[in-house]
């Protein structure tokens, strides 16, 4: 995607519907969005999806928003590991009968 501002609620929900154990959105640092507020919009959408998951009884930590610059390759790797650790600790998704199990 050209910018996390393009991420919509439905994209995140579709991933969970298809059996994703976790989803994270990696956006630019706040205040540094090329399109001004794309990453802020993404953060709000991630927060919305957390509420949806909570209402359904699914751990909201399964979706997260991270901010880093495209020059922070090492940070990107750290975030990926952090997210994997979080999801591993929670366990697999309770969403069964899914395509991407």
């Amino acid at each position, binding site marked *: 995607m050209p910018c996390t501002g393009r991420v919509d609620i439905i994209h995140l929900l579709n991933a969970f519907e298809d059996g994703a154990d976790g989803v994270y959105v990696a956006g630019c640092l706040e205040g540094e969005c090329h399109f001004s507020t794309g990453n802020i919009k993404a953060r709000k959408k991630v927060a919305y999806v957390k509420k949806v998951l909570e209402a*359904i009884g699914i751990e909201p930590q399964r979706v997260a928003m991270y901010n880093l610059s495209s020059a922070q390759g090492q940070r990107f790797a750290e975030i990926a590991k952090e997210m994997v650790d979080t999801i591993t600790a929670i366990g697999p998704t309770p969403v*069964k009968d899914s395509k991407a199990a």
Partner: protein
Amino acid sequence: MIVADSKPLQEILAMVREYKKILIVGCKGCVTVCNVGGAKEVEVLRASLMIDGKKEGSPPDIDTMVIERQCDNEYVETLRDNIDAYDAVLSMACGVGPQFLSEAYPEQKFFPAVNTSFYGGAVAHGIWEERCAGCGTCIIHYFDGLCPVARCAKSLLHGPCGGSADGICEVSKETVCIWDTIVKKKIAQGRIEDLFVLQEPRDWRTARDGGPRRSIRETLAE
């Protein structure tokens, strides 16, 4: 426009969880404009119900559609061919929608997915405010187009009351005291005398107090 808000997802789940084949119907009217029941929101609700169903181990079969207006039988009629294929129908229109659907299809079960709130407009991106109470006898010409019936918590016709402080209404810090705005505007225009006119008690029968209302255009009605 009519402004609505999403019902809490848990409330919707409690209404339709027992049904296996569900149709979600959105509306391209007001609820699309206030981002609560248009094409996008229909898909978000479908995905949410599917995630819940899959989690519970029995995902429902869900179809979606968005019609021009649920408050118009011409468009409600477009559901006729397939309506019997569903166990339940969730309407994402304002409160008018599920009723038009329910009247057109007496055999089907209909559920509302939104809470219909008020007649208003967007004051900023993503923020809507009430502006009209639909009282049936508009009197805003006395108040420079501002409506104390809809916008004063007490619907006062002579204000402000003692609860007005720094232009804010006593009921909430978020609520402008419309009477403060009306008075300031009249003063600014040098027309404060307009507000010395005694407003007679209103005949509320044209509002909801007179029961459900009806509007007829003689030139159109057959």
